[in-house]
């Protein structure tokens, strides 16, 4: 039987990891915090892909590997599959999860959102920035899996309407 732990263990651990890096260590340097969190995700993705691909044949092309992430990998980690996969057939893939588990309990404080309507606020809102900190981890995981499968890439995430989340993978030529 597969060993399991309570979901709250993973949830609280991720929250604390983000709080530690973006709140305590690099409070004024979000880009450094982001890099560390992504690196932790990369390590996890790298190791999980070793375990989950142990008994399968080599993937014949990029699309096969991406499909593995959408179906098998996502099911193992999030108990559901990716809802929509799009590609331009030139190395860019968009994976959309309509109810991304790690954001399903995140809400954006309406008071802070109001501030963002203020045109004088430059760039991203604080709330959106806080949410994006959580996404460096899954982005790192995806990059870790693909790079372990021999596909170097860059991964970013887009959250236009919570809890839908799209991961954009750009394979490096």
């Amino acid at each position, binding site marked *: 039987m597969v*060993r*399991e*732990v*309570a979901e709250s263990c993973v949830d609280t651990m991720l929250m604390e990891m983000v709080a530690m890096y973006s709140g305590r260590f690099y409070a004024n340097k979000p880009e450094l915090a982001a890099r*560390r969190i992504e*690196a932790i995700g990369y390590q*996890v993705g790298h190791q999980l892909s070793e375990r989950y691909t142990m008994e399968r044949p080599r993937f014949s092309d990029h699309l096969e590997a991406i499909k593995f992430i959408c179906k098998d990998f996502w099911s193992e*980690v999030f*108990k559901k599959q990716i809802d929509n996969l799009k590609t331009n057939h030139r190395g860019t893939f968009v994976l959309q999860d309509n109810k991304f588990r790690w954001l399903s309990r995140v809400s954006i404080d309406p008071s802070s959102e109001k501030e963002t309507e203020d045109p004088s606020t430059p760039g991203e809102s604080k709330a959106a920035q806080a949410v994006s900190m959580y996404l460096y981890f899954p982005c790192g995981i995806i990059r870790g899996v693909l790079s372990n499968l021999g596909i170097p890439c860059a991964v970013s995430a887009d959250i236009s309407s919570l809890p839908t989340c799209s991961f954009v993978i750009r394979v490096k030529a």
Partner: protein
Amino acid sequence: MAPVGPRSGDAIFSSIDRVNAELFTLTYGAIVRQLLTDLEDVDEVNKQLDQMGYNIGIRLIDEFLAKSGVSRCVDFKETAEMIAKVGFKMFLGVTASVSSWDADGTCCSIILEDNPLVDFVELPDTCQGLYYCNVLSGVIRGALEMVSMKTEVTWTRDALRGDDAYELQVKLLKQVAEEYPYKDDE
């Protein structure tokens, strides 16, 4: 109607949302690894893991109380049993045992034979002094503090350091009396 009482850890664990433990174990491992790289000091890593655990503990106690249905423990002995039999079970899916009580019942050991945090873990020689599972001691300390108990939690045995089990010594420092926010009226 069946009497409402504390449910066993097994029953709670089977009814709550669970995830693959590999994700949990590997994520924790990756965090420890990153901390070792960033902080370059084992003692500082121990401190951060403990802090992380403390912050987790003060949140998890709410979930524990909400889902377990336990009521107030009569003494520290019952508290320790509750952590070992219900707490560890409902969060990590393993049970611990309690032993080595001191005479006045304020200090005991919680022994963990099976520990999902350390699956796949081996410590290299460069990590001497690292308390890899320090997050756990922080969790217990944080959770107990939220229910008015100041404790000191230390590792007395660690299988990653060559011992035969994981043993945490939990010492009750003081029971903080509940204080209502009277200040508002002053």
